[in-house]
């Protein structure tokens, strides 16, 4: 038997000057289930709250309706108040008679009538409210960072410095990502390796960081605070504990394959470190190309290795589970395969048409040419270089619709480097727009133009060979003329796209991706480093094209979120989540795909069904840690087995009914 108390607030004169609060209280007293109604000047004030608490005691009330301002304003205030009483804090409803009544209507009958309706709806609903209890979930105090580029490195260091354990997982044999491939970074032109390799060493030396290279995420279970991640450690075939990193094996390996790190400009052995400053500084054997592992004939590395038992051809991939409380995805980007998109640029038939990252290796002091810009076809120094921007970016027809953000700046940097290193060089940059929104970016671009780079506004429509060299043909849209430039080297500043395998990985964690495959942030402005999935955060270019400063800033932001989470021992969850009436659930699974949080799973249970005492059937289960309480599943449920606590079907229907009583 519900004994409902209704408390009507004057809100000074905010409400009472428009709504006849006395009449509302009188009407409320007559409503079914209501055993007490009162009005007061300021319900939210100390005496107001005391008045409610007194009335609860005096009249034995067991449910409360407060007609006052918006629940978005004071619902938590009154819930806290109820904690002082015997009443569960969820046996409370607020009738919004200020923002949605007194403030939007003129004084008079109608406003009062509406207030009474709103109170009636609240009274009807509260009668069907049930006590709810928020639950506490424990938090595993360890973070997983997936991806060892600069984003992952920064995030891991920040979390580790705050005193939490971190596992940094990288699928390549070394951390460092794209940044270590670069030569210099804009706009300051400091050497990329000089600023990133110390951070890599910090990672390997940090007591709170466990570094896993050549490893992948195989499976993910659990939810915020309680993830269980299956990690697949690929076999390195080199015992990392005893290897001294002397490098003799790399020198002696007879098998040479194209170096991915040098973008095909040089070769590497089958037993290799990704690059000389790799962390960890120990080689792995690439099993796809190793002669010993492929056909059992070679074994030279084992023979020349000075450490006995270090090379182990019998090593196997290992899979194991590890628990984490939070995850940061930092899977980064790759450049688009422009050959498949832009046949008019030769589709890879011309060796002297290269992408920006290849140019970085070409101009890099530790690259295959030791920093001398030599064109790939014949090793000659190019005199005229054409740089084409937005190749694949801002091109919805053939490439990606978005702007890749960093290209304008690194195109300017490339131009600067060419003009700096090659005496008498000429650089033509074809562009759509020049976008330089960053600190000191515009100044850098300006300087590049002063250095002599010629900016031509227009797209290159075709790159062809005239029998002697390459010709770039395009339109100068400012002159409204076709132009042709004979080039010794063409650098295409190609679009960024999500890294290989990022989609599958995002899927494993249940996060979603946008139309272009970038990982979707929870809110584009206000929750930029969180995913839709609680406890899974993101950093760097996996969320969208970014330059290094933005990537590092986002990595630290994600780390701050993780530290905040891991600093708690337990987490309180909202009790207003979906609940399943197992007796009604038919296990049809219609709710499962609707849930944006993958909180619903189908499970097989054993129960008593009629004369079968141990019948097996499938039902849906809601994971309280994952459910955010949107209620989408309730509409999909055919049997009405799923309901949303706090907003049950019966509660909403009774509100509707109350309007026409």
């Amino acid at each position, binding site marked *: 038997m519900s004994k409902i108390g209704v408390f009507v607030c004057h809100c000074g004169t*905010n409400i009472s000057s428009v709504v006849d609060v006395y009449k509302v209280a009188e009407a409320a007293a007559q409503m079914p289930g209501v055993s007490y109604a009162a009005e007061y000047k300021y319900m939210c004030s100390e005496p107001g709250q005391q008045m409610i608490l007194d009335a609860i005691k005096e009249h034995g009330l067991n449910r409360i309706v407060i007609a006052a301002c*918006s*629940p*978005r304003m004071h619902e938590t205030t009154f819930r806290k108040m109820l904690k002082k009483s015997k009443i569960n804090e969820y046996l409370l409803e607020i009738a*919004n008679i*200020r*923002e*949605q*009544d*007194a*403030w*939007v*209507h*003129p004084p*008079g*009958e*109608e*406003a009062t*009538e*509406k207030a009474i*309706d*709103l109170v009636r*709806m609240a009274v009807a609903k509260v009668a069907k409210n049930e006590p709810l209890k928020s639950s506490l979930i424990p938090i595993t105090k360890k973070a997983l960072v997936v991806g060892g580029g600069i984003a992952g490195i920064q995030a891991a260091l920040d979390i580790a410095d705050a005193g939490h354990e971190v596992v940094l997982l990288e699928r390549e044999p070394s951390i460092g990502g794209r940044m270590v491939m670069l030569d210099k970074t804009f706009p300051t032109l400091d050497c990329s390796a000089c600023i990133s390799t110390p951070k890599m060493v910090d990672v390997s030396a940090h007591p709170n960081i466990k570094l896993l290279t050549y490893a992948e995420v195989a499976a993910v279970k659990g939810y915020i605070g309680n993830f269980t991640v299956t990690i697949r450690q690929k076999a390195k075939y080199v015992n990392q504990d005893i290897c001294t990193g002397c490098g003799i094996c790399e020198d002696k390996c007879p098998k040479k394959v194209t170096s991915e790190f040098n973008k095909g400009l040089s070769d590497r052995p089958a037993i290799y470190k990704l690059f000389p400053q790799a962390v960890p500084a120990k080689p792995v054997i690439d099993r796809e190309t190793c002669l010993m592992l492929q056909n059992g004939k070679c074994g030279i590395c084992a023979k020349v290795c000075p450490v006995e038992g270090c090379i182990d051809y019998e090593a196997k991939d290992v899979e194991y589970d590890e628990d984490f409380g939070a995850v940061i995805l930092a899977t980064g980007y790759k450049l688009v395969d422009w050959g498949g998109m832009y046949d008019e640029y030769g589709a890879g038939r011309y060796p002297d048409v290269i992408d920006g990252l290849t140019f970085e290796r070409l101009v890099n002091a530790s690259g295959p040419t030791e920093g001398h810009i030599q064109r790939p076809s014949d090793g000659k120094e190019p005199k005229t270089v054409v740089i084409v921007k937005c190749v694949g970016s801002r091109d919805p027809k053939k490439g990606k619709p978005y702007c890749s953000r960093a290209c304008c700046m690194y195109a300017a940097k490339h131009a600067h480097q060419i003009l700096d290193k090659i005496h008498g060089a000429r650089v033509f940059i074809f562009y759509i727009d020049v976008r330089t929104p960053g600190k000191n970016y515009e100044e850098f671009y300006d300087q590049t133009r002063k250095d002599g780079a010629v900016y031509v506004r227009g797209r290159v429509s075709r790159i062809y060979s005239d029998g002697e060299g390459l010709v770039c043909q395009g339109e100068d849209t400012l002159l409204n003329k076709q132009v042709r430039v004979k080039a010794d080297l063409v650098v295409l500043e190609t679009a960024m796209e999500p890294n290989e395998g990022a989609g599958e990985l995002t899927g494993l964690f249940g996060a*979603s991706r946008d139309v272009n495959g970038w990982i*979707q942030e929870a809110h584009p402005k206000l929750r930029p480093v969180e995913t*839709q999935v609680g406890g899974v955060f993101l950093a760097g270019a996996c969320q969208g094209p970014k330059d290094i400063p933005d990537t590092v800033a986002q990595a630290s932001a994600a780390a701050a979120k993780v530290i905040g989470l891991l600093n708690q021992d337990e987490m309180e969850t909202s009790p*207003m989540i979906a609940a399943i009436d197992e007796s009604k659930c038919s296990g049809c699974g219609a709710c499962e795909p*609707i849930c*944006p949080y993958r909180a619903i799973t189908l499970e097989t249970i054993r129960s008593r069904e009629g004369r079968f005492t141990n019948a097996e059937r499938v039902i849906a289960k809601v994971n309280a840690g994952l459910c*955010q*309480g*949107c*209620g*989408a599943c*309730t*509409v999909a449920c055919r049997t009405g087995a799923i309901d*949303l606590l706090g*907003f049950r*079907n019966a509660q*909403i*229907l009774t*509100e*509707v*009914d109350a*309007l*026409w009583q």
Partner: protein
Amino acid sequence: MAIDKTAGTAPGAMIGLSADGTEASAPKILAFCCNWCTYTGADLAGLNRMKYPANVRVVRVPCSGRVNPQFILRAFQKGADGVMVCGCHPGDCHYATGNYFTRRRFMLMRNLLEFNGIDPKRFHARWISGSEAAKFRDTIAEVAAQVSALGPNTRYREER
């Protein structure tokens, strides 16, 4: 509290008020508003002291995707003259995808209502964000005007 002097009365805002002498026929409109966008927008309309017809009653739901078609049917059965389902703009849903379900259901719901002899003009789905107080005001005024023009919904009103 700041009062927005620019917040005026929307055209048609006075429709349904008793002043015109037809108080008996003032329509009642039920609006299911999602907690994160439209309900917040409605609160903001109050904060800005915007004026709109008093015949709308808001039911707060966590998400427009929570609105079961059953709720809408029940409202019409009880005699609601108009029903609105309001949520975040597509792509802005607090729960990522809820309003896409709403959008799809809305199309089907209109057909169902038509089949049942209820003018689909009585049923509206609108996207109103937490900052669009003026849009909330204008939408209520517009729907109220449309629904008043249709007269009372007596199709399924239970005789008592």
